[in-house]
């Protein structure tokens, strides 16, 4: 459904994305994970026909976004990061206008606008002015707009940003529902969002894809270097660190402010052994808390892996 080959975009001399290649099939929810400035929005804007790439091709539902832009755009629904709304229109008027721009006839629109609003649970607010809606509702109006012409591909840029937890849950639920019979591509910088929603994830860093995998394998792969903090009573951190260094499975052991931070060796979980040793020493185990890998850590790790890989290649 989405076929991208060697996609490159320069802003002046700055390379925003660098030879991206990936694909997505029907029924798939593809996650685009990366920090700000990684090139997520740029990629999405090329796929939606907003801007042309500097090099490479992107094909949506069989139509090249450069050679057949109108056909390609007809098949994409797009929810930009800040939902573009006409505040002085009602919800119905707005979705109806977009439906008409996408070529839907009067009768078709009567059905489709209603269906789209029902899908995002806004039918009862159809006659409200958009300017008077809450942020979560506006996000849903944006989603209705993206869905109204029944696109094969739905592209969403940070769909849950700036929403409160209840709204986030709502929007995720909706994405899951609409993702069943089309291709969805969404960007985020929240790791757990990808885990909950996506069947496949692309990790973008400095305009390049540094990893592509299912969220499950990706997180197991990253489990390899699980870190945790140990806080102990009746012993100084330095003393504890000294002992823990010899525990099998513990890789790097460092003292931090009021405890010890242990990084498990690759592929191992040192927590049970550490707990046993601490108790065996007659100390009080006050806390043993895993540190979640932040997105930053993942990038550091992935980019480090990549560097090691390229070094290995050069040596060979």
């Amino acid at each position: 459904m989405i076929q991208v080959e060697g996609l490159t975009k320069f802003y002046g001399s700055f390379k925003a994305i660098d030879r991206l290649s990936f694909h997505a099939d029907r029924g798939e929810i593809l996650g685009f994970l990366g920090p700000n400035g990684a090139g997520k929005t740029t990629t999405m804007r090329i796929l939606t026909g907003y801007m042309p790439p500097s090099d490479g091709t992107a094909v949506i539902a069989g139509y090249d976004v450069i050679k057949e832009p109108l056909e390609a755009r007809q098949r994409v629904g797009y929810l930009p990061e800040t939902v573009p709304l006409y505040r002085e229109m009602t919800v119905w008027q707005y979705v109806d206008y977009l439906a008409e721009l996408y070529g839907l006839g009067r009768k078709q629109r009567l059905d489709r606008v209603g269906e789209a609003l029902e899908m995002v649970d806004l039918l009862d607010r159809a006659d409200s002015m958009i300017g008077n809606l809450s942020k979560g509702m506006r996000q849903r109006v944006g989603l209705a707009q993206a869905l109204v012409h029944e696109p094969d591909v739905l592209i969403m840029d940070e769909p849950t940003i700036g929403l409160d937890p209840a709204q986030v849950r709502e929007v995720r639920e909706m994405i899951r529902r609409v993702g069943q019979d089309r291709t969805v591509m969404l960007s985020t910088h929240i790791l757990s969002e990808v885990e909950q929603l996506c069947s496949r994830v692309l990790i973008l860093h400095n305009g390049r894809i540094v990893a592509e995998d299912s969220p499950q394998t990706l997180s197991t792969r990253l489990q390899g270097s699980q870190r945790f903090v140990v806080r102990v009573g009746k012993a100084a951190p330095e003393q504890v660190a000294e002992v823990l260094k010899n525990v099998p499975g513990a890789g790097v052991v460092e003292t931090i402010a009021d405890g010890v931070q242990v990084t498990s060796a690759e592929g191992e979980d040192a927590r049970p052994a550490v707990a046993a040793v601490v108790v065996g020493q007659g100390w009080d185990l006050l806390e043993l808390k895993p540190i979640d890998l932040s997105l930053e850590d993942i990038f550091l790790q992935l980019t480090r892996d990549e560097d090691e890989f390229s070094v290995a290649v050069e040596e060979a």
Partner: protein
Amino acid sequence: MATVTHSLRTMWVIFKQEFSLFFVSPIVYLIGAVWLFFAGGFFALTLTGLSQFGGEPTLIPVLSPLVFLMIFIAPALTMRLVSEEVRAGTHELLFTAPVRDWEIIVGKWLAAWGVFTVFMLLTGVYAVIMIMRGNPEISLILTGYLGLWLMAGSALAIGVFSSALTQYQLVSFMVAMGVMLTLWLAELGSNLIAGSQFFTDFFSELSYIKHYQNLVQRAVIEPLDITYFVLLIVLFLFLATQVLSTRRWSA
């Protein structure tokens, strides 16, 4: 998809949207009020003149100053059209919809011209009064309105172009007014350059004054004058489209 019907359809959708958005904002009522105030004032003066000094009843003293007034009316009508989309980010919707850039521009311009046409038709009541009470040359009234209408079309094209240049409505207003004043005053330029007949003619042809005078004041329909206004419209709508398209290239 059949290209021509697609384009016509799309422009119609944009036209409808923009035309109805005009009447949501209070600005259009303000502009309408100013327009009708001046139109009524000029008509009253014309009637006073006729009753005191007699003469042929004609709408020329009403239409001529209204043409000049367009230099301020047109930018006020168009300043919002593209600027506001870019400021609010809604151009992202248009850029990712199956719509060509020139269809957006032409649709918006047609909406502005449509609103102006409403304004213009409202002043038709003076023509009707004059025809009922006196015996004016009707062809003179019709060519006068044709001239005003074409001049407005070109003025609004300039307005749409300057609205595409910036996301600030005030800047758009000033630029459009500047371009139009320049076109108006080109006539003065032609008087200043005494040496070269070519440049004198060039600036004179470039100026609004000469072409609208033929239509509005002398009631002559010359192909050259019609071409002048049509060319201005095509040129500025083309430029507006180019400017809008460059927004796709910037981050």
